[in-house]
């Protein structure tokens, strides 16, 4: 075991992928000479050179599309988009090409591209750098959507994603990059199909992913002090959802709260809630609750920003309400 950060775990994953497979290269804005917008790729240019640590112009559509097509022609690109907000400039390529090409070509073409980007609020970067739109991407058939919330997943999801024959989007909550903890020295690839039970409990299931996992675990600790035993599920893969793990947990606890940094309307939380209703309605002792971001563009001022996104007291309150306390 060694102490590492989420940032270092992602970097180690990229380095290992590039060492293992000549076809892997990293492409994006400031990934090379600058050292990475979030310093994830710091040092990799020196190690692998400018062909494989490829700085791009500020042109999300072209370089994302180029990554998608390079994957179709035998490469294994990792495309880094600085934030999910900027990925909207590449949405045409992600949606109209990456997600559709396998089906539209009758199975003749596929693009095993991996597209990484930062998501989430909490750094006072205001509305155009702080949104959580991974739920939008989870709407789209033809792509896989991952949200690593732990050091193990930050280290291990990339390799599995690169092995996937289809496009995979990885959303890294920007607040997690500095997260520090112990990681096994031989930590390697992890599965990207299943949700994980991060904390076992029997009174209520708290379902979350990415940047809200830590807050949800903290809420579960508080609830324990109140005599409420909360199970915490980390969804990990937002598309396709691991319905089995979700429904099995809810069947045991009979209550559920979904915690999602996306906006409530049309959110991933809405989808998870509906799946529980469809699959476990008769097991429920209370309506499924949701803790989401306020329906507002994320503001700059710290107190307003904090109030806009899910926080521990809100999660605790929602869980207590579901328990009738």
């Amino acid at each position, binding site marked *: 075991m060694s102490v590492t950060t989420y940032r270092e775990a992602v970097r180690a994953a990229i380095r290992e992928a590039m060492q293992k497979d000549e*076809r892997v*290269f990293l492409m994006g804005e400031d990934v090379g000479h600058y050292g990475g917008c979030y310093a994830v790729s710091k040092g990799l240019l020196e190690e692998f050179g400018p*062909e494989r640590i490829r700085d*791009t*112009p500020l*042109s999300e*559509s*072209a*370089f*994302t*599309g*180029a*990554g*998608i*097509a*390079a*994957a*179709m*022609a*035998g*490469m294994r690109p990792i495309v880094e988009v600085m934030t999910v907000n900027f990925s909207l400039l590449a949405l*045409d*390529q992600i949606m*109209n*090409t990456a997600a559709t*090409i*396998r*089906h*539209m*070509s*009758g*199975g*003749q*073409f*596929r693009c095993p591209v991996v597209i990484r980007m930062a998501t989430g609020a909490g750094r006072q970067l205001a509305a155009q750098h702080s949104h959580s739109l991974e739920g939008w991407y989870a709407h789209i*058939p*033809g792509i*896989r959507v991952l949200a690593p919330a732990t050091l193990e997943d930050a280290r291990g999801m990339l390799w599995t994603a690169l092995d*996937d*024959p*289809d496009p995979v989007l990885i959303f890294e909550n920007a607040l997690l990059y500095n997260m520090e903890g112990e990681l096994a020295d031989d930590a390697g690839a992890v599965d990207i*199909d299943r949700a994980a039970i991060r904390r076992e409990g029997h009174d209520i299931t708290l379902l979350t992913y990415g940047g809200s996992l830590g807050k949800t675990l903290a809420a579960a600790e508080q609830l324990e002090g109140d005599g409420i035993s909360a199970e915490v599920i980390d969804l990990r893969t937002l598309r396709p959802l691991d319905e089995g793990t979700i429904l099995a947990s809810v069947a045991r606890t009979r209550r559920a709260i979904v915690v999602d940094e996306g906006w409530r309307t049309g959110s991933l939380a809405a989808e998870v809630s509906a799946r529980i209703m469809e699959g476990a309605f008769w097991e429920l002792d209370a309506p499924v609750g949701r803790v989401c971001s306020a329906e507002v563009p994320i503001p700059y001022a710290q107190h307003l920003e904090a109030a806009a996104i899910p926080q521990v007291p809100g999660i605790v309150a929602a869980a207590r309400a579901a328990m009738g306390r």
Partner: protein
Amino acid sequence: MTGAGTKVHLTREHGLALLAQMLRIRRFEERCAELYTQEKIRGFLHLYIGEEAVATGVMETLTPEDRIVATYREHGHALARGISMNAVMAEMYGKAAGCSRGRGGSMHLFDRETNFYGGNAIVGGGLPMAVGLALADRMQDRAALTCCFFGEGAAAEGEFHESMNLAALWKLPVLFVCENNLYAMGTRLDLSEAETDIAAKARGYAMPAEAVDGMDVVAVEAAARRLGTEIREGGGPRFLECRTYRFRAHSMFDPQLYRTKEEVEAWTERDPIARLRAWLEEVRYLHAGDLDRIEAETADEVEAAVAFAEAAEWEPVEDLMTDVGAEART
């Protein structure tokens, strides 16, 4: 029958082949228009009639390893590239034997065998794809080039700028072929572009670019061959603007209120097929019976394709969800 400054030695055999290819495309599409009115073919149908010289001339210069990126007006590109007419027609019908197994239709013809990457119905959407295919070839030391067809309407899209810049910056082996037919759907070039010289735009990215008479198949072929050679020699991307015209409406739903009959007639007089034919006659390459033979062979091929498509099976509805992603892991 040459564009200014180009010298092409055209044999009788090659001249007839160009004529036959353009006629194949035209007769195929004329039949498609009929089938559309009979509701055998549905969806959007964008005909290439009038523009055959571009796909025919450019495709002559490409190797089997080269990659093609096309637009939603791509029947001509698909046929000239060598996708079987049967597979293209079956795709028009939406049949399982179609080149995209009935999932793409007229606008999304694909064929792995011939490196044909569609069939992109988003104007400009194919440009980043061409950049990526060329990047992959360069990084894997392959000799192939990527040929990207697009209309002049795409020059108004941001992806045009981004892709030109990236291809030129990275010196990628891409031949950009702009099919300038003067109308972006129904909007005339000077109503949609501040700079109407499209080749001049490309030069703004430090990319050698030229314009050619797109109604002259020999001139198109000569220019594409020369630019292709420069690309293969490591010169980076090249840009070829082909000035052409579509004789038919943008799609089958288009009443063509935006252009005059006189204009259409004036361009029709420059019909690339009639021009090549006249030249072949003038130099005595076209012998008595040649044209009848080509027309008869083409008609047979088209009717065989219709019969093939008519008889082909529908993809079973049970297969609706196939090829959305890889089969689920266990």
